[in-house]
């Protein structure tokens, strides 16, 4: 099947962009919001720590890098999604590497340099959370690329049959989209409820988490509508219908328009005051409680003022209330044995988990294939071809607009214009030969235009020869031979050969030698 410009654009630019940008947008907002929420809660429950800001900037960058790598790198390097374990392995290796690298910049003793504090552990936890969300979403969207590939090569009944043959891909793809959509909704509700609960508890989150929440709100609507479009696409494809890029574009523009209007409303109407006083709700709840007999008359109180509860304080109270005294010797020995066994076991598991795949056969095969580089090269070549084709089309359009039916084109421009109309399936030898024939024909045109026989792009060689014959009837034989060779070269798949080309050149030479009109 010959790939059209639109099809190539879609396969090279649109589909990878969808696969990369959509999860990235979703994950970035979701991960940032999750981190903001968790950090707000932790900040509220733990006392302030002076060293908390040490790695904060770097770790924020790391957080972004992790998600970018997960969104972009995973797509480019793996194509198909890898499993959860390999994702967690990547996460652990990346975090440990970056942490060790950053620890070198610290001051103090060697042990202190590499000992993480509570704030850093919190941020590592946030990074891990964002990563896991990314990996999960990517795994869910994995089959969608396979669906794209199946759909790209088929249409109509053939598409219907192809998807039926790959029903598992379609089913998994649809389930994945639905799952991501559902999880995004649940996640938004959970985060919203957390923020509201924090406000009720008198612990309003900072401006950064709020900004992240608002961003996630917009991203959520965008992602949800995109997922709806994809779901529609799958449903229509199941019926053998393939949606054109123009229709998808139109729908996306309309969705953006609705989103923009909603955004404008939100910007205009949002303020630090509610439409109704919160006391009204409290009074209503008190009235509701008073309707039930036997319930003692209580009053629902407004949200308390912000207060900080320290887990360290709770821990200290617990330790103080604990009975004192040395543990029995057998317990101490058992505890020590268990501790050493636990450390050894954990270390062994971590080593096997992290570095086990490096000695596996699959990894060796992966190295042999050098798959990521091949994919990158292939994608780059396709992209370059698409850009070149677009540039040529744009150039042709500009030329047509600026020079409508004028005879002022140069010889090179004519040859180039003829090359653009060439069918794409010609061999290299045929292309070179056709260009040479075009050069000879361009000589005739140049010669003719010096005698005011204007050539237009829309004219064929025959039509132009007819105009020439009107002024130069004696050249009839030569022109017939010329147009026969030109037509054969321009419109056939065959190579005309050196003899015919020599004949053509000789004919052109004899024509251009004619300087006077009959």
């Amino acid at each position, binding site marked *: 099947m010959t790939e059209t410009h639109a099809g190539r654009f879609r396969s090279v630019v649109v589909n990878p962009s969808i696969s990369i940008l959509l999860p990235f947008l979703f994950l970035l907002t979701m991960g940032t919001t999750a981190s903001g929420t968790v950090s707000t809660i932790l900040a509220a429950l733990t006392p302030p720590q002076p060293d908390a800001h040490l790695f904060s900037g770097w770790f924020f960058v790391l957080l972004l890098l992790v998600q970018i790598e997960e969104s972009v790198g995973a797509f480019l390097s793996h194509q198909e999604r890898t499993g959860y374990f390999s994702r967690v392995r990547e996460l652990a290796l990346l975090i440990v590497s970056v942490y060790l690298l950053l620890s070198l910049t610290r001051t103090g003793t060697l042990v202190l340099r590499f000992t993480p504090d509570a704030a850093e552990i919190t941020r590592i936890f946030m990074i891990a959370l964002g990563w896991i969300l990314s990996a999960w979403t990517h795994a869910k969207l994995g089959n969608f690329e396979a669906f794209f590939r199946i759909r790209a090569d088929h249409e109509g009944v053939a598409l219907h049959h192809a998807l039926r043959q790959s029903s598992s891909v379609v089913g998994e793809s649809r389930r994945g989209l639905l799952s991501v959509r559902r999880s995004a909704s649940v996640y938004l509700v959970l985060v919203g409820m957390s923020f509201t609960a924090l406000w009720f508890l008198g612990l309003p989150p900072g401006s950064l988490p709020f900004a992240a929440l608002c961003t996630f709100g917009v991203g959520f609507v965008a992602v949800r509508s995109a997922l709806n479009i994809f779901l529609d696409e799958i449903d229509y494809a199941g019926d053998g219908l393939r949606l054109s890029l*123009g*229709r998808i574009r139109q729908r996306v523009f309309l969705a953006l328009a609705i989103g923009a209007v909603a955004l404008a409303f939100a910007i205009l109407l949002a303020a630090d005051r509610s439409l109704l006083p919160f006391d009204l709700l409290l009074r209503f709840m008190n009235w509701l409680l008073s309707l039930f007999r036997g319930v003692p008359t209580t009053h629902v109180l407004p949200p308390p003022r912000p207060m900080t509860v320290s887990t360290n304080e709770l821990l200290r109270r617990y330790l103080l209330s604990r009975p004192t005294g040395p543990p029995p010797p057998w317990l101490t020995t058992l505890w020590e044995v268990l501790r050493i066994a636990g450390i050894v076991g954990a270390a062994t598991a971590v080593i096997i988990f992290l570095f086990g795949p490096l000695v596996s056969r699959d990894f060796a095969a992966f190295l042999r294939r050098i798959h990521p580089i091949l994919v990158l090269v292939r994608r780059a070549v396709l992209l370059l071809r698409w850009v070149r084709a677009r540039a040529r089309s744009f150039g042709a359009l500009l030329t047509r607009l600026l020079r409508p039916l004028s005879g002022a084109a140069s010889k090179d421009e004519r040859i180039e214009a003829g090359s653009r109309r060439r069918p794409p399936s010609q061999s290299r030898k045929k292309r070179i030969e056709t260009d040479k024939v075009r050069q000879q024909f361009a000589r005739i045109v140049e010669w003719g235009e010096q005698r005011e026989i204007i050539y237009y792009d829309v004219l064929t060689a025959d039509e132009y020869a007819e105009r020439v014959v009107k002024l130069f009837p004696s050249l009839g034989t030569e022109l017939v031979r010329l147009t026969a060779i030109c037509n054969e070269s321009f419109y056939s798949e065959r190579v005309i050969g050196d003899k015919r080309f020599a004949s053509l050149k000789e004919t052109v030479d004899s024509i251009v030698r004619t300087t006077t009109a009959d």
Partner: protein
Amino acid sequence: MSAGAIFGLIISAFLVLFIPLAPMQWLGVFFLAVILLSKAYSVAIRRSLSVRRNDHSINVFKFQQALIEISLVNRGMLPIPYLSVFDDAGNLATRDQNRGVLALGGNSEALFSYTLKGYNRGVYELGPVRLRASDPLGLFPWSATWQLRSFLVVYPSVYPITLKTDHGVPAGTVRVWNPVYEDITNYRSIREYVPGDDPRRINWKVSARTGTLQTMQFLPAIGFPVMVLLDLNADHYAVRNRYVHTERAIEAAASLVDAAARLGQAVGIQVTGEVAGIAQSVAQPPATLAHAAMAAQSAAMAAQSAAKSSAPIAQGFPHATAILELLARVLAVTLPTGEGPIQHFVQSGARLPPGAWLCYVGPTLSEKQRQQLSGSVDANRTTLFYVDEGVRPPDSLYDGLFRVRWVRSSGEEIVD
């Protein structure tokens, strides 16, 4: 509205109404606006859409393609990016062409069309039309069913048959060379008198002017009404390939009707078979004039199906078309052995008009049936079109009483 949307509305409204924090207000207003705008969009495009069929009845012959067209009009300003259209074509083979996705701009009209091919004769009901669309964000998808019905009448295949035109009644529409059938309403020329000419044909004025007797000549033409008796008593056919042979008999009868109608002759038919109705009836009350017209047509068809499966001898293409429609719907039925169109025709005492031809189409007649038939009709004007069931005798063009032609069980030449 779905439960999720209602939940989102409640949460958003709660945030807007009671939470005095700008970010939460922002979020509430944003989601509220998105939900309400999407809902309004979805309802607006649903209301502004109207659908109609371009043809309420389509008649085609077997294996002929029928073009089905549905017009979709968006009277509103809002464009509809995706509009999925599905026209229920029953058990007709559509090759999935009866579904599609269209895009409709504001105040615009689109035509959804596809082709059908009737592989079996019959009357088929098309519709309803099911549409599916949603707002651009896909939050409020809707699907609607338009009760637009139309009928596809698939006539049996018609093959060329040459009718014998040597006998008939004068003053018909078929030109012959036999001067016996001169049509005195169809003047041709004047020639010199030849002894033996009818004196009434002498043109005295011209004779006086020329001095010799001149006789008027008229064009000879005959008419021969055709009555077709089609036996669809399944019991009369061999069990082997019974369906094929009954279908072939129906196609032979249709070909005879078509040939007679093309010659401008009156034609009638009598069938022993069951006339089937339409598989699905129009149950919904008519919403528009078009629906009312379709309901009336459906009722007429139902009434026709209940009527006797015969048509009197009459002239004209509309009458021939009605007979073809009857043949499109008739089914073979099991009756007591011996009961067939011959018996009905003889027992009814009906008389054929002068010069009429009788064509029997069906399996080979028994001796008793032949005797019955010979006592009621002119054997010279009767042709038996026997369906070749593989038991054809070698000397078979004349059975002693009637002229016999054999209906082939396959091929484009339907009779020998």
